């Protein structure tokens, strides 16, 4: 009788220990999963910030750099809205195109008459879409996708011609 009771106690002890171990494993798993989820969220937000903010600020800086009368305008090339910033050098006029092509924002700096096209630009950063619209002095830059954003910029040169 005594032996039986001791055996049962031993089984209960082992069972309790196993249960405790199970709780330990479950908690460890939960902690790792929670950490993973938080890491995933932070990564997603960083990517959103990248397309929603970095891309817009990059373009805004480019526009402010090249905002001269008649030198900043939005054009359509092969059904793609392109921001064209022109600069005059001794050797002639050079243009910077900023546009969306093949999954990324691209920039092409070339002579105006070089004949280069959209596919020749250098990818700057990955993005889901980019569009420009100009209405008088106001230029709207919009990025597409989950973290997409919109920035309105006033052209100091009033978007006029030179």
């Amino acid at each position, binding site marked *: 009788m005594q032996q039986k009771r001791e055996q049962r106690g031993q089984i209960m002890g082992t069972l309790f220990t196993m249960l405790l171990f199970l709780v330990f494993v479950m908690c*460890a798993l939960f902690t790792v999963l929670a950490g993973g989820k938080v890491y995933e969220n932070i990564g997603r937000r960083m990517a959103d910030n990248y397309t*929603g903010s970095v891309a*817009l600020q990059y373009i805004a800086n480019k526009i402010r750099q090249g905002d001269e009368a008649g030198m900043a305008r939005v054009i359509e090339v092969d059904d793609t809205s392109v921001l064209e910033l022109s600069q005059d050098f001794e050797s002639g006029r050079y243009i910077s195109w900023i546009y969306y092509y093949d999954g990324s924002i691209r920039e092409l700096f070339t002579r105006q008459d070089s004949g280069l096209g959209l596919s020749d630009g250098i990818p700057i950063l990955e993005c889901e879409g980019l569009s420009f619209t100009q209405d*008088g002095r106001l230029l709207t830059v919009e990025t597409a996708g989950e973290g997409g954003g919109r920035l309105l910029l006033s052209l100091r040169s009033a978007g006029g011609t030179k």
Partner: protein
Amino acid sequence: MKGKVERKGGSGSGLFLMEMIVVVFFFVICASQCILAFATSERMSRQGKDLNQAVTMAESIIEVWKAEGSDGLAGRLGFVSESMAGPDGSQVYVLKLNEKWQPADGQAEENTRMARIEIREESGMSEAVVTMENPLGLPEIAYRKEAAELLPDSGGRIVFKLKAEKYERFSE
């Protein structure tokens, strides 16, 4: 003798149980610190995204004001003039924003994010201060520590403040 051996076995299981309890206790302390760190990083990341969106919108508001003045604010973004003038007799315009800090297009609830612009004109110079505000009762995205010290009167409500000036053109 047999009884003695069995008693020894039982005491081993008890020791193992004690060891497990100590390990679990230690784990609980570590896990609570980890979860606290996760929660903090999640909140900081959310604040960062909020701040980015608020800054972008504040910049857009200022740019529209610079290009088209208060008419542009009302026409393009939907700003509404407040009947009460601000301090120093400035004209105040407000705009309801959605959770992405974009204009809410009239379908916003009462307690929403707001953009407020105070415009003051003095001897040909115009000054505008844009304030991006959280709704009341949203303490989880309120700013703390250094950020809160920069905006002491906001009570955590003001997320970002941007000031700009421009010369007004006078028609002859």
